[in-house]
Structure formats: C-alpha cells, structure tokens
C-alpha cells in the first residue's frame, strides 16, 4: 500500500488531491508516532505505526460504540426525553475552549458565537424540515470529520502540518465543496455562506490580546448549512479524524497504576492516560481495545481508509403507524463497501405517510436522537506482530474525579492533584504516581485550536 484513501472511499477528489490527502493523513500518523516516542522511555517501545509502513499479516479489529452521546445521557439519568432534547441543543465553541471568538474587521472586533453540536460520539444528525410546512423531510446522519471538508476547501494549506512533503501540497477545490454542499444539504447553499467573511480571532480574558483563529476567506465548518440549517460533516471539536488518530496512538501505550499493575479496564485506562472524554462511549472503548492489542505484543494502527463509520442501524426499532416495515427508509448516502459516512432516514417517493407518523419502539419519531440510540458506530484497527513484544507500561498521567451528585459523570485531573469541591476520586485510585507525558495529552485536546 502506498497511499491512504479518503474516508469511506468516497470518490470526490482527483488523483492529485487524493495523493495530497494521503500525505496529510500519513503526516498525522508520523507525528503521532513521534509523540508516542516522547511518551515512552525507549523509542523501541513504540507500538503505533503509520498504516503505510505496516507490512506483513494483519489482523483487523472492529471497534464499535453507540451513536447517541453518552456524556449527554449520563447527565440526564432516567430521562431519555431530556437527554434527546439536550443532544439537539447547539453549544458554543468558545465555551468549549474557554475563549471568546471575535469577528475582526480592521480595528473593530465584534463578539461572534460559533456553534457546534454536543453529539460527540463521532456521529451527528440533523432533522431536515420543509421550510414551508415545517414538516420533517429526512433525518441525516454523518460521521465525516471536519478535516476532509477543510481539505476540500483549502487543500493541505488548511492545516499547519509541516510533515506533508512539498510535492504533495495541493490546493483545495471550492467548486467541488460547493457542489457537495448543494448535493447533500440543498441547492440553496451559496458559496459565500461557506467561508468566514472576516478574520476570526479569540482571547481567553477580556484584556488579552486577540489571537487569530481563522483567516477571512477560510472555510467555516460552523457555517449555517452545517449547523442550524443543515449538515455536511461533524462539528463537535472532539469529533475529528485527527482526534481519532491521536487517540489510537495514545492508546497504544500500556499503563500501570501506582502499584505497578497494568491498567486494563476501560474506565480506569481512559482516566489514567487522560485521553478524550471519559464520559463518552467511543473513547474508552477505542482506548481499551487498542491497548489490549499492544499488551498482547502487537503493533497497531488504523485501517485504511482512516475514518469513522456508521456500521449498523437496528431497523426493527422503526415501524409505520400500523406496524408497517419502514426499514428501507434508512439509506446510506456516502461511503462504499460498508464504510458508510453519511446516511439518512426518509420516506421514499410516494410514501403514504411521513416521518411524523413513524414509530420508534412505539414512540412517535420526534428527534434524531431516537434513531441515534439504535445506531452503531465503528472504526477499524489493524494489528501486526512485528516481533517486538509488549512494551513496559508507563505511569498514569491523570485520574478521574466523579461528581458527588452523579458518580457517572467523570472529569479528568492531573495525577497528584485533588478533586475539586463537589467531586470525589473515581475508582478510588491512588494519586501518588508521577505524571508522564501529560502535556502531550493535553495537546490532544487543544489540537482543534491549532491543527
């Protein structure tokens, strides 16, 4: 294999740009291999590899999780309706990063809110309504990372990735971007809607100097056709392809608790390594499965094409008002060979009734979250025995605190520090081990601001 394909093997890109995409993703892998080398004590202990450099017999592993955002669900215990409602409420990107965003025109800076969906299991949805009647026409689901779409708009220049060789640096194809938006979201999309009309800057505190986030004319992943008025790709800052690669790399490092014993279960491991969000379904599952392979002495990476996939829809959950089979209303839209990155649930032409009459396990279909509850997401890992054996574990960087009033809600703190008021130590873990590589892991979370 000498090239990495586009997520879902979609055929949007010409050969030159596809090579550019491959070089970009490959550079991410190389960077993550470097980062992993910085975490472990010996470069020979790195078990994360670039898929382009992995040869020999490979074992595949499918890693799956639920599409409905667990962080939302755990904050609404016993209240599925409340959880679905909360999952449909947009959030402020500024709040996520702890900054305020500004639209900057010359010397004037006006506060601006960039919105994202709290649907953070690498699957987001949108209920597309008829503008006249307000009736739901279709419910669209996507698992496409924002990076691919930024690449479509601006090519490799969209990323501060020095690892892309000069000969693979390519420009974007904004006509293609617009065509895809019109095809997938609607013909009403205008080109200028998709790009920032001014520089976008941010600052943490009111007195801080403004720092550039995106330049005027750059692709705006939070544009209205990808948020309040449509859905092209994922918006949650942690729903990214780069994040997927980063998570898999970080998960390839075995960990040990303060007593030296291996940390293996999902809850403890994701806390110990300080990876992702410990409340999610996806991150702990991915981390544990990857880590499990490494502890068996295997080297790991993600299978080409690197992506996040909608792999199963429990069609028995949906029915017509009189129990009719409406399973065929579910339709993959993008992705081939079972690698679905976009799907929709919509009545076929001539259907006797609309979405509002569909039942999901007996309940009227009122939110996309009801379908997300019966959707399965997956990524595909590969492992190879390169004869290196299992590397020694490194100590935990972080640990989890659990909310006193709801211990199912977790948050990360640096190991050695106390849990804040209202939180207690989750898993009763010892906080005596020294941090290792914590800065690198925090960088994973900040990547969205800089990558």
């Amino acid at each position, binding site marked *: 294999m000498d090239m990495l394909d586009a997520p879902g093997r979609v055929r949007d890109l010409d050969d030159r740009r596809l090579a550019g995409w491959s070089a970009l993703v490959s550079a991410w892998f190389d960077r993550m291999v470097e980062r992993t080398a910085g975490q472990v004590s010996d470069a020979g202990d790195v078990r994360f590899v670039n898929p382009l450099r992995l040869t020999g017999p490979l074992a595949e592993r499918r890693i799956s999780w*639920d599409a409905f955002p667990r962080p939302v669900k755990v904050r609404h215990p016993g209240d599925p309706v409340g959880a679905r409602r909360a999952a449909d409420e947009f959030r402020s990107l500024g709040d996520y990063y702890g900054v305020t965003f500004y639209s900057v025109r010359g010397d004037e800076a006006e506060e601006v809110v960039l919105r994202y969906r709290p649907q953070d299991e690498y699957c987001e949805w949108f209920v597309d309504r008829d503008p006249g009647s307000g009736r739901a026409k279709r419910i669209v689901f996507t698992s496409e990372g924002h990076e691919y779409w930024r690449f479509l708009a601006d090519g490799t220049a969209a990323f501060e990735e020095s690892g892309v060789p000069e000969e693979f640096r390519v420009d974007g194809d904004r006509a293609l971007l617009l065509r895809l938006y019109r095809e997938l979201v609607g013909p009403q999309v205008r080109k200028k809607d998709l790009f920032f009309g001014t520089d976008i800057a941010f600052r943490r505190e009111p007195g801080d100097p403004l720092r550039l986030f995106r330049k005027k004319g750059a692709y705006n992943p939070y544009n209205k056709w990808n948020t309040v008025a449509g859905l092209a790709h994922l918006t949650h800052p942690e729903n990214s392809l780069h994040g997927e690669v980063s998570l898999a790399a970080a998960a390839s490092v075995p960990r040990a608790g303060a007593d030296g014993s291996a940390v293996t*279960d999902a809850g403890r491991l994701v806390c110990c390594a300080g990876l992702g969000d410990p409340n999610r379904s996806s991150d702990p599952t991915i981390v544990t499965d990857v880590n499990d392979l490494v502890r068996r002495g295997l080297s790991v990476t993600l299978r080409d094409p690197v992506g996040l996939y909608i792999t199963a829809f429990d069609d028995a*959950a949906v029915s017509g008002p009189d*129990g009719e089979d409406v399973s065929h209303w579910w339709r993959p839209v993008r992705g081939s060979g079972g690698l679905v990155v976009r799907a929709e649930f919509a009545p076929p032409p001539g259907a006797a009734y609309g979405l509002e009459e569909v039942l999901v396990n007996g*309940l009227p279909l009122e939110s996309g979250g009801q379908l997300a509850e019966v959707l399965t997401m997956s990524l595909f890992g590969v492992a190879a025995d390169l004869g290196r054996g299992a590397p020694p574990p490194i100590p935990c960087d972080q640990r989890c605190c659990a909310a006193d009033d709801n*211990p199912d809600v*977790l948050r990360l703190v640096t190991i050695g520090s106390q849990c804040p008021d209202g939180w207690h130590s989750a898993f009763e873990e010892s906080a005596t081990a020294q941090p290792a590589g914590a800065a690198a892991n925090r960088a994973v979370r900040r990547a969205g601001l800089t990558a």
Partner: protein
Amino acid sequence: VNEPLLELDDIQAHVLPGFGHEHQRLLGWRLPDDEPAAAARALLADLAGRATPARRGLADRAARRAVRRGRAERSRLSGRPSTAVAVSARTLRMLGHDDLATIDEAFTVGMSRRSYLRDPPAREWTVGGPGREIDILVVTAGEDLERLAGAAEEVCAVATRAGCELVHDQRARRLPGDVEHFGFRDGISQPVLRGVVDADGTPLVERAPMPVMPDHRAYAGPGDVLVWPGQFLFGLPRQSETDPVRAAPARRAPALARNGSLLVYRKLEQDVPGFLADTGRMAAGLGVDPERLRAELVGRWPDGRPLARSGSSSGAALNHFGYDTAVPDVPDGPCGADADPDGLRCPLAAHIRKVNPRDQETDKGPPSATLTFAILRRGITYGSAGDDERGLLFLCYQTDLVNQFELLAQRWANNPERPRQGLDNGVDLLIGRVRAGTPRRARLLAGEVSTVADWVVPRGGAYLFAPSLSALRVLAAASTGGL
C-alpha cells in the same frame, strides 16, 4: 459503605426475595370499559391486603431452606399462599397517576410496541394481545395446590365482582432440580442486593470474607456480586456505571414509586423436540457430542457447572469465575478459576455470556457498567414433558426497562457482535431473535452453527409496575382527579 434500609414491610416479596414456592398461578385482569378506575380500585383494595411483604417472603424462604436441608419439619412451612400484584401503565393513568404511568418510557409504551425486541406481532400473542392487554397481574404462589386454588378463587371472585375480565390464567410449576425444559438448571446467577434490614445495620445478605477480586466489584460471597438496590427498587440508591462500589443517586421517580419495581412478564414457549433435534443435527455436522454442543449454547452443563471453569464445580463454585481475569481461591470456599477472555472454554455466544459478560469489557463500557444492567429474575417453568405447550414464564424486576431487560435482550442477545464487540460471534441461540426468515447463527468452539428455527417463541406478556404495599393502598383508596 453506608447501605440503605430496605423496608421489608413495604416491598413486595415477589421482588425480594422472590417466590420460591413450587406452584404459581398468574391471573391477568383487564379493566372494564365502563368505570375502569372504580373497578381497579375495588380490585386493588382487596389485593393490597393480600400482597405479600418481603419480610414474610424472607421468613418463608428461610423455612423452606430449613426443611429442604432437613433442619426443620415440613409442618414449619406456613402453607399460606403468597401474592404479588402489578399494574399496567393504563391502569395507573385510569387511576389518575400519570406521573407513575410515565415513570419509564418503555413501560409507558408497552411491550407489544417495543419493536426492536423482534417479538412476533402482538396480534399473534396468546398473552396480552390486542384487546386482551393485562391491566392488573396477580401472581399467587404456594406449596399446596388446594390452598393456592382457594386463594386464586378468592381473587377471581373479587375481580369479577369489580367488573374485571380474566384475560390470562396461567398455571406454573417449578421442575425438579430447578431446571428449565431444555434440561438446564436455571436461576443460578442473581445479583445480591445491598441494603440493611434493621437499625443495627444487619445486611440483607450476610457477607462472607472474600479476597480482593480482580474485577474491583464487591461480593457478598463467591459469585454473589453486590448491587445497589436502586437497580430494582425505586427510591433507593442505584448502581454507578463507572464505579462498581459506590452508589449513584436513586432514579428520579414520584414518591409513590418508592419500593416499587418494574416487572417484565413474558411467556416463552419452548420447542423441546425441535431444540433436541436441531442441536443434534448441529452436533452431527460438527462431529461433537450433542450434550456438549447444548452446554456450549447455554454456557453451563445441565447441572449448572460453568464451562468457563475447568474441572468440577458445585455449590458456590458454580458462580465463582470471571471471563477476563482469573479469580482467586476463596479461603474456606471454592478454589480459583482461570480466565477465558477469548471464549476458548465458554463460547462468546453462550447464553450466560451474552446476557451477563461479568468482568469483561463490553460495547457499553467497563464491567462496572454491566452491573447496572442486572435484573432480578423471577421466572418459573410451565407445562410438563407430556404437554403440547411448555416453557418458561420469564419474569424479572428492574427500575429501567430500556437499560436493563431491553438492553440484555435487544442489544446483546439479538446482536451477533455484542456484548464482546468487534468479533462476530453470532446471537444468543436460546433467546436471540433476528429478522424473520433469517438464519440465527452462533460461533461455538468447534465451529459455527445456524438454524432457521426458533426454539423459544415469545407468546406475549406485559410491562407492569409492582407497587409497594403502601402504594397499593394509595392506588386503591383515593381518586387524584383521573378518569
């Protein structure tokens, strides 16, 4: 760890500790179209005085155990039939308790509409089908058939007088050795409730000294994993998804729900000749012993010995094992057992592994989360070898139908890649259901097997709410402005 007081005079004995009697009779009542609330109140007023409290259930159980072990005369058994009462969401709405009727999304909708269970259409149900939905279920149980019949007749008289229609009348009897009709011992693994029963802090279940277990769970004894009671009783602390030891706050529910529980009732008909013939065919195809193949489908030998434990097992050892990590020896108890993470002794598709993956990571997260899916099973067999119809009356209690019973049935038993995700192991061939006309398949130790037959056919049932004794009295007494 401070454990809550279990109000044994308020909790129904069918929830805790369950009816261990030999005989049961289940009576399902439909409220009349005219003045349903009055009928419901009249019947519930009588039943409130009959429902058996947990305290008596525990005393009866202790007596039965003493007799069985030869430590007491049979005359010590009270002989009094036990009674349990559960009501539908419709009944609660009729009585003006919409807040209780909507206590759980699946309960509100009803079992017949939960399409992802892949049950046969409700119009084909013999229990709880259209127009014959059970509004009030009465479970009576006893050792003495005559006294049981007498108790049932008394209930029938009251219900009939109240204008209720008997839409379901089911007799059930435990088979010798507590086996189900396929010949396997049933009900071995049950969660043990945390909680104390008096002001002195006496635990409901005595705690034996246990070594530190690698799964970080707390045990009352070998194989007896401790679970916070809020998983089964409203108003009490529930199990945390992330911490196997600490409690999480009680599920949000109206005060009247306290000490009540949600009941799943399913009549599961078993095709014993079909099971034997089909598994015989599978065994011949793989060249293995049919008994061995059947044990792999279950995960245990007929006498209850788990396949995951090598060597012989009995008593407490039947439940002292993990899949992911080896369990240690228990001083003065069962010896330890090796792990079986990849299903090399007990297939990943085995029934007991599908619905209870124990210490193994699942698609739903760490093993601590698995404890939150546990149910209290109260099933009993019906029919006998000579009957055309026989099977299991599956009854279980919980406080969250979606995340307990339905999760085990829909997400795990029916799904070929869960709970041990990433590996296609097939469905639970005993209870797993797939799209009609599609073969059901499972990967066993000697190879893959498949069948188009359903050995276990759901014949209907209901989602119900078993109120506390005090709530039963409230439901029976006052109108709160309902119909």
